[in-house]
């Protein structure tokens, strides 16, 4: 095994009720795309990385369609705010607050995320 480049040492962690939960290595996350993580209690989180390296995590379930697919949506910037658009019917969710940008009454859970 060759010596891995420095990024492979870095892990992405989510803050859950009982502490930081390690999800995967940082380089599994492509800028502009997401991955899904299975949490110990069976919930799912969608993790994203923007072009500047900033990380976000929200609930993976699309509250409109019901399927756990938000990690597969396209990300972007709307008026300076990062968002993901659901791949089902394209509703957008603010990645920092979980607020749905197209339906005021809808908000999804968000997670603290860090690289360690």
């Amino acid at each position, binding site marked *: 095994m060759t010596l891995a480049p420095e990024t492979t040492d870095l892990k992405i962690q989510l803050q859950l009720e009982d502490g930081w939960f*390690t999800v995967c290595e940082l380089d599994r996350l*492509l800028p*502009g795309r997401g991955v899904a993580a299975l949490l110990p209690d069976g919930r799912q989180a969608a993790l994203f990385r923007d072009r500047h390296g900033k990380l976000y995590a929200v609930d993976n379930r699309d509250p409109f369609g*019901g399927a756990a697919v938000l990690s597969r949506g*396209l990300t972007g910037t709307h008026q*300076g705010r990062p968002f993901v658009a659901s*791949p089902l*019917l394209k509703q957008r969710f603010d990645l920092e607050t979980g607020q749905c940008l197209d*339906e005021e009454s809808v908000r999804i859970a968000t997670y603290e995320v860090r690289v360690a």
Partner: protein
Amino acid sequence: MTATPEATEATPTIVLVGHGMVGQRFLEALAERGLTATHRVVVLCEEPRPAYDRVALTSYFSGKTPEDLSMTDMAFIETHGIELYVGDPAETVDREARKVTARSGQVFEYDVLVLATGSYPFVPPVPNKDAEGCFVYRTIEDLLAIEAYAKSKATTGAVVGGGLLGLEAAGALKGLGVEAHIVEFAPRLMPVQVDDGGGAALLRTIEEMGLSVHTGVGTQEIVVGSDGAVTGMKLSDGSELATDMVVFSAGVRPRDQLARDCGLTVGERGGISVDEQCRTVSDPHVFAIGECALASDGRVYGLVAPGYEQAETAAATIAADEAEELTFTGADLSTKLKLLGVDVASFGDAHGTAEDCLDVVYSDSRSGLYKKLVIGRDGTLLGGILVGDAEAYGTLKAFTGSVPPVSPESLVLPAGAGESVQLGPTALPDDAIICSCNNVRKGTIRAAVTDHQCTTVPEVKKCTKAGTTCGSCVKVLGQLVTAELEASGVEVDKGLCGCFSQTREELYEIVLALRINSYQDLLDRYGRDGAKGGDGCEICKPAVGSIIASLAPTIGASNYVLDGEQAALQDSNDHFLANLQKNGSYSVVPRIPGGEITPEGLIVIGEIARDFGLYTKITGGQRIDMFGARVEQLPLIWTRLVDAGFESGHAYGKSLRTVKSCVGQTWCRYGVQDSVRMAIDLELRYRGLRSPHKLKSAVSGCARECAEAQSKDFGVIATSGGWNLYVGGNGGATPRHADLLAQDLSDAELIKLIDRFLMFYIRTADRLERTSTWLERIPGGLDHVRDVVVEDSLGICEELESLMTAHVAHYADEWATTINDPEKLARFVSFVNAPDTPDPVVGFVPERDQIKPDLPLLTIGHRPLEGSAQR
């Protein structure tokens, strides 16, 4: 329908004799004025079908069906309670008793009788004029007979008459594979519309198309063989022309026999004499409109626009509407036509009959161009003739009668020749007539935008009827609508999205010209100020990703859409190379080129579907769709498919989907070409080509069109001489029949033309704009596209072809690449931290011996959001 021959006193009866274009317009005019509610309306129609678009008759030969040509909405007839008797002409009129007797024996009493019997083709009284193989060119039935004879018995054909219809008939014969001759008595073609100079320009172009023209000679005799069928004709110069069929198209005469028989006054050279209200001069209860009427100015009008005006006049008179006192005192004979692909237009005083008038002429017979303007002594534009390029027709015609704001020379010089200027329609006065078929003035069109909130040409057409008959004014309409929108301060942000102020077409040009192969680079250099340095959005990322993929080999990008930064741009479906379904599972569609598949191939697909428990369904595009695959199953499924020789079907991409085919001449008794082979060739050539929207195609092996090619973005129909190419068809919510782009192409010509067409579409279409809407939107429409891709008017065809060649050379199957790349494969997991765990949300329940999604009903409700540029 049951006839109620007795009119009661309570409901006065209007009987219309003749259901052509003018008759139908008359019925609409009655309905608009409420007369169908107060009157019983009876229509006697001689032809076996209700009113159809006779002006577009020749389009039957370019693929329009009689149904396409119909102008009669049966719902309209029924809604207004109109009694329409098709195939039952009026035989006699008893004016004293006010009764019409039809051929069927039905008798109708009338309060008002309207004659719209049209005209009949004039056949010169030469010997054997009725022999087998002699035809006229007037009705759909005539065309069906010509087509049948040309296909079975004729290799050469002659058209008597070099006027408008004669040229159309000759073009139709040529299209049927018959060597065509035109015999015109006058010294030039289209003698009524153009002068000698215009005739010369026209002649050159027509002869270049392979038609033989004989001007200045008359027909003396039709020569027949021993079986009584045509073998040739004797001409007035003593020569003899060998021909298998003759089509008489030497003008028309008013059909006034019915009027003559009942004692109505007719003109010396025919035509039922009417006054300015279109009421016959002999009987206040009888009107005559259209080509059978001799108007109060002593002329019989053979064009549809004056006929429409007469229909409106008669209806208004019958309604006795004092607020609307219409009169018909004569009409403009301006015409613009596209004959055999050549623009011909004449307007106003085209032959310069006014005193002291002067001509301004530009003539270039090398390129078949001829333009003449007739100018009065005071500078007033009186009329003109345009051959070869009638672009300026709409504007010039509207300026007729006034002094144009620029010098006349500059209006006829070709673009680039120094002084030439484009005189926009915005300079026209409000009362200028833009649509002469429907008599719509510029002010009305402006009002449609300002008062009726129309923002597009189709809306304006619907609102004003402008541009709905011959279509020659649609270009001017578009310019007026845009100008009016801009003037009323509607800021039309044509930008792609909140990140880019450019249109998709502009971004394409930037990417190609500057060889930009990075989205971030493009955004940071050309994005809107607030968007630079950001992450873009879900609208522009896939759009730019598609542009980069379309041009990949040329701009130095990877031809693999999941490579590097490109992976982040793709829509979710492209990212997983499969179609996301509602429960988070995917469907898989392997490519089955042309719909041809071996039993072994079917078995492999069946085994895979069985082993992975997938739901299978045959698609509309002759392929097999397998549903219910979880994301981590996709590589396993595709490893087996690739091993068996299958490739990605790109069902997930905005790219070529399928090329359907019928079984073609290999098996079919009717087939004339090998449609399956051509479909496979086309599908393999264009597979993987990223485009603004999905592309569908089909190839039919004969004119029966079993592959439904005319509903495709590009459709191919076999002819005995090669292939006909149709473009811009669509099924779905707004079906559109494809337009014929070119005829009788060889294999190589066909592929070259499709290469150009697709690349031109990819270059200029908006995001998510199908070819059908693109064709309707772009200025100039089909004609423009034909100019660009067939005539190479922009000089870009070489570039379009080389872009396609590069695409074809660099194509590689995305799934084969993916399953051989461990790093890419690592993305195909439900959970990054538990690669072996399937997504528990994805569940299935049985239905009809297969599976269907079992989705927990925890949803908020569906509300589809379409990306919009305004966001």
